[in-house]
């Protein structure tokens, strides 16, 4: 009749972090000052990492750590710190329902598409992650995208240095 306690706690935590993620996302698009929006993006990132970890702790938990370290720790921090360079960060709050209609239409279309797709998939249970297989996959199967990513990050580093040195 009732799910086991651990699953119930997992469901309550998942709902809590889901509500938090939606609340932070709304704050990002409605905040008067975009600096606070950027700070809110960090909390959104933490909420997303928590949601992913709660989906399957033994399988996707490792990605959540990377999400907090790489995304929240690097990207969002960079965004928030860089915004200090600008003077006027106040934004006019948009009035009008066209944006809300567009967002609502995208959400509904997305969920309808997923609902149609879900009827054609078979549900399979997840196994705990094996790090040896994960490392083999990255280094043997996906070596080319990894090289592209490294080159992209290096060129970005050069670009950032050249931008910082410009008078």
């Amino acid at each position, binding site marked *: 009749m009732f799910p086991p306690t651990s699953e119930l706690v*997992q469901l309550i935590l998942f709902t809590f972090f889901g509500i938090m993620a939606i609340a932070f996302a709304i704050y990002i698009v409605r905040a008067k000052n975009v600096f606070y929006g950027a700070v809110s993006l960090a909390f959104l990132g933490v909420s997303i990492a928590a949601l992913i970890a709660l989906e399957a702790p033994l399988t*996707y938990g490792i990605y959540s750590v990377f999400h907090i370290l790489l995304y929240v720790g690097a*990207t969002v921090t960079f965004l928030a710190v860089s915004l200090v360079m*600008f003077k006027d960060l106040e934004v006019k709050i948009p009035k009008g329902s066209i944006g809300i209609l567009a967002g609502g239409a995208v959400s509904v279309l997305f969920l309808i598409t997923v609902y149609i797709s879900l009827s054609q998939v078979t549900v399979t249970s997840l*196994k705990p992650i094996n790090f040896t297989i994960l490392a083999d996959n990255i280094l043997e199967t996906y070596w080319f995208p990894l090289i592209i*990513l490294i080159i992209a990050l290096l060129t970005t580093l050069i670009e950032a240095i050249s931008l910082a040195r410009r008078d």
Partner: protein
Amino acid sequence: MEVLGILGIIISGILIGIGFYGLSSTSNIIRVLLSSEIILNSSILFVFSFSSIVGMIYKPIIFSLFAIGMALTEVIVAFAAIILYYRQKGKLEVE
């Protein structure tokens, strides 16, 4: 838990809508960038939610690792463009 996967898909759908609302309702470049980051987060959540239902283990992790790596690159390049725009125009609003 299949329920968490479906809940995750619903949350990611709502987040994509909020992101598109942010994209379509502002002329501020930084807010556009932040809205695109919301869409990125929701797409990553969707990948994991869908994979938890289907039973994929390694592909979503590898895909998302590459995605956040590219997101880091994209944010820095976009910010460089924003700084150049701000130096030339003196404002953050797109005409």
